[in-house]
């Protein structure tokens, strides 16, 4: 499968256009929540594109991490902001020229990088990467980078556990609470025993 054949594939076109359209919607709608959800759709479209190129591992990871993780975190973030409808900063483009320059630069850079990718359009280079190969290369040539990343993740996870364990200093410990409760019971009993006031 080479580039020309790919270009003629209607499914590819459809997916690409849909992804782009969702991305456009994500940056243009006024409602922040809708924007996040459109972003999720756009990421899903990217995943579908990966799947289209038989990179099913990448597609699944895309869905798992970006849609299932990042978008959900974004939702959290949006909910924690005060005004998620009609955010003022969202309505206007304040610096259109600078933004356009950055966008164009990014686009040119990306096109340049893609066109200079070795083996583009070469049918022999489009070998399917199987799962074991992926695993082997991750733990073979790229083992160091992989380990560094996993260390980071491990640190994050340990941090989460530590945070969960940490007790709020304002919160009395269970022992203290029980002592308080017993005290309260004594007070009530004492009250009942010495209650001589008739109403």
């Amino acid at each position, binding site marked *: 499968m080479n580039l020309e054949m790919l270009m003629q594939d209607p499914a590819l076109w459809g997916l690409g256009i849909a992804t782009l359209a969702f991305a456009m919607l994500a940056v243009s709608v006024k409602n922040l*929540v*809708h924007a996040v959800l459109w972003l999720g759709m756009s990421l899903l479209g990217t995943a579908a594109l990966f799947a289209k190129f038989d990179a099913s591992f990448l597609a699944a*990871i895309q*869905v798992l991490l970006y*849609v299932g*993780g990042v978008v959900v975190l974004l939702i959290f973030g949006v*909910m924690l902001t005060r005004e998620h409808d009609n955010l003022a900063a969202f309505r206007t483009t304040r610096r259109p020229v600078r933004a356009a320059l950055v966008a164009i630069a990014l686009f040119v850079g990306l096109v340049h990088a893609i066109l200079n990718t070795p083996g583009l359009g070469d049918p022999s280079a489009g070998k399917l990467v199987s799962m074991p190969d992926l695993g082997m290369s991750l733990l073979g040539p790229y083992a160091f980078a992989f380990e560094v990343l996993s260390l980071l993740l491990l640190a994050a996870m340990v941090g989460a556990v530590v945070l969960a364990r940490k007790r709020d200093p304002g919160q009395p410990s269970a022992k203290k609470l029980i002592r308080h409760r017993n005290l309260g019971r004594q007070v009530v009993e004492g009250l009942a025993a010495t209650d001589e006031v008739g109403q």
Partner: protein
Amino acid sequence: MQGLLRGLVYGGLIITVLMTATAWGMWLERKLAARMQSRIGPNVVGKFGLLQPVADLMKLLQKEEIYPIGADRLLFDLAPFLVTTFAIATAAVVPFSAEAVGADLDVGLLWVLALGGLMVIPVWMAGWASNNKFALIGGMRAVAQSISYGVPLVLTSLVAVVFTGTMSLSGIVKFQIEHGWLALWPPGPGVVAFVLFYMALLAESNRIPFDIPEAESELVAGITTEYTGMKFGLLYVGEYVHTMVGSAIAAVIFLGGWDGPFHIASGLHWMVIKTVALFASVYWVRWSLLRFRSDQLMRLCWLYLVPVSLGLVVFAALWRHFVLR
């Protein structure tokens, strides 16, 4: 073209069977719950109340549709649809037997986890779009819970992946046919991994004791508070389908899928038996236990489930390296 046809046939088959099974799964749950409470349960509509799901469906179909004031109509409509879709889509890769599998993906397990994690978005959408504080709190709780319990879910399924060396669900089953079921072998850690997976599954499908997103005593009906008629029905069915598919996946990963005990009469029926048993056990738990509080839920996850499942992954790697070679 043949692939498309096969996909259509299998897809239609899976959806039909799954929805039917889920409908009578609801009946089963009601009967089970009734018996646990010394009641009879539905028994007037049809023989043994078997037509009860049909009556429920007919009733839901004719209910008025209400949009709350200020609701986000698009998301409000979309959410129930997506919940059910994602739940059913998960079933596409589940191997019910050596032949009956919709799509035997290389990364079947990842696909399942990805779609399972995705479930939370429509659930949250339903909560947010309702413009109702109870629904929104329910949705936020669902998100928090799903993110937290996604970690042990992934880690425990990673245990299975490390043992079997494959992410294909049928590959996992084939490994178990050769070496024994993962829940039983290696003795000890396998069971622990299975139990942790099961707990995370309960949490992901919002079942008691982890059903804080729709805690009736605090949140009216959680995310479904504002839903009427068939949209409520879809949300409801989506949850059941989610549980059903989750049970099937637990059966595949840890209970040897279609493999019979001691390889006796292996086939589709074993898968069905295991799935239904797990499904019923979810509801057994549901009608027996109490609900966690929100903070207890998080503490349980991050203080116990995550460290234990991390340890299990390490153990699995060591076992794989030194014992299985």
